[in-house]
């Protein structure tokens, strides 16, 4: 327990977390500090490209583990399955409409790549190795949850039709394509390719992540301010309970298929995190009547900060206890 706390403490005092806190505080204090949309998008492209490439290069270096397929399958199962748990939990804890609950559930089956990136960076900082192909698992987990949510709605005869073209749009959305594409490039060009561009994608990575999290803090803070009162206590409780449930299931599955300790932590983080880019856009098309303030505020304003600050250290501690490091 004291170890968890000290880990959490050292995590909280990292430039990454403090940058997020700065953004959050600035937005809540109504400062006009803001990062241009184009720059924020540019940074997220950088992060996706770098994380994908590094994952691919690491796979090229260590060979494809026999657990790769199992990990992909575990990720897809989680993404399909977690929305049902989320939906049930929402129905218990909140008075949300079925439509809103289904939309929220989709977010929690899918993943937040920035949470994943932050976890990677914390693992690296502590010298815990992990499987390079976990970024491929992340990509595989983005979409399935959307189908579960639509099925939850359709079962109720409540619209939520799968518009023509939507599936293609989801599977080919920019972040999936970039993540998978740079993973493949990293795999093909291997350590030699990585060495060529490491001064761009490796050494300054953490610094860029700081500025990106500053922006995430600004966005989360502004969201919290604008949607004051949208979330009741039950919803907030859901926003911190659901990630822990996801993490525990991820822990079980990860141990089952034989991932390394670092890999288990990353699967926990993927299960615990909630989407705030791909899924919201899909929901606007597929479930336009669901209230975006609810799912964005929960995912970005509650779960993301929770995972970033307390969640990740907790998951690391849990995995260490259960699997040993």
């Amino acid at each position: 327990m004291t170890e968890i706390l000290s880990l959490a403490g050292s995590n909280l005092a990292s430039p990454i977390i403090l940058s997020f806190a700065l953004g959050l505080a600035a937005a809540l204090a109504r400062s006009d500090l803001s990062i241009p949309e184009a720059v924020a998008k540019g940074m997220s492209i950088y992060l996706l490209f770098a994380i994908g490439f590094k994952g691919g290069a690491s796979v090229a270096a260590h060979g494809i583990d026999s657990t790769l397929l199992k990990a992909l399958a575990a990720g897809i199962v989680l993404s399909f399955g977690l929305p049902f748990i989320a939906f049930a939990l929402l129905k218990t804890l909140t008075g949300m409409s079925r439509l809103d609950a289904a939309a929220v559930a989709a977010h929690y089956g899918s993943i937040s790549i920035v949470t994943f990136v932050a976890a990677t960076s914390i693992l690296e900082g502590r010298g815990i190795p992990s499987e390079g192909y976990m970024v491929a698992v992340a990509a595989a987990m983005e979409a399935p949850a959307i189908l579960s949510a639509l099925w939850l709605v359709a079962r109720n005869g409540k619209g939520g039709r799968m518009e023509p073209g939507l599936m293609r749009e989801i599977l080919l959305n920019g972040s999936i394509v970039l993540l998978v594409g740079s993973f493949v490039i990293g795999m093909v060009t291997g350590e030699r390719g990585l060495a060529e561009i490491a001064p761009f994608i490796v050494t300054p990575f953490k610094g860029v992540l700081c500025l990106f999290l500053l922006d995430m803090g600004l966005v989360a803070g502004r969201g919290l301010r604008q949607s004051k009162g949208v979330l009741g206590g039950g919803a907030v409780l859901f926003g911190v309970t659901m990630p822990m449930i996801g993490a525990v299931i991820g822990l079980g599955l990860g141990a089952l298929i034989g991932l390394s300790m670092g890999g288990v932590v990353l699967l926990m983080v993927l299960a615990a995190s909630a989407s705030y880019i791909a899924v919201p856009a899909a929901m606007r098309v597929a479930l336009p009547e669901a209230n975006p303030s609810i799912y964005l505020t929960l995912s970005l304003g509650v779960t993301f900060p929770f995972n970033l600050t307390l969640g990740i250290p907790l998951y690391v501690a849990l995995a260490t206890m259960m699997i040993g490091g």
Partner: protein
Amino acid sequence: MQMHTAKRVEIVIEKPLESRLTDALNEAGVTGYTIVPVRGGSGRSGPWTREGQVGRAGMVMIVCLIRPERLDSLLDAAFAVVERHIGVVSVTDAQVLRAERF
């Protein structure tokens, strides 16, 4: 200068719907339009601004100049897309140069 009567239709719609709207316009035979970015706004679903929109894709404004007799088919097409979504449609009387273009 010879001018021709036209309608100016202005549609504000969520960005994820943009391609669906332009596809619908194309099907309705409307092939001329201009898309203007939107920095923010306010409506029944509250105020928002574009800076640092993570997750919220924002809105766009689409401006179409068309011959008056084609207004109805345009509005039908637009309404089918906008109907269930956030968005606003307005129409103004206008004059255009170079009617051969419409």
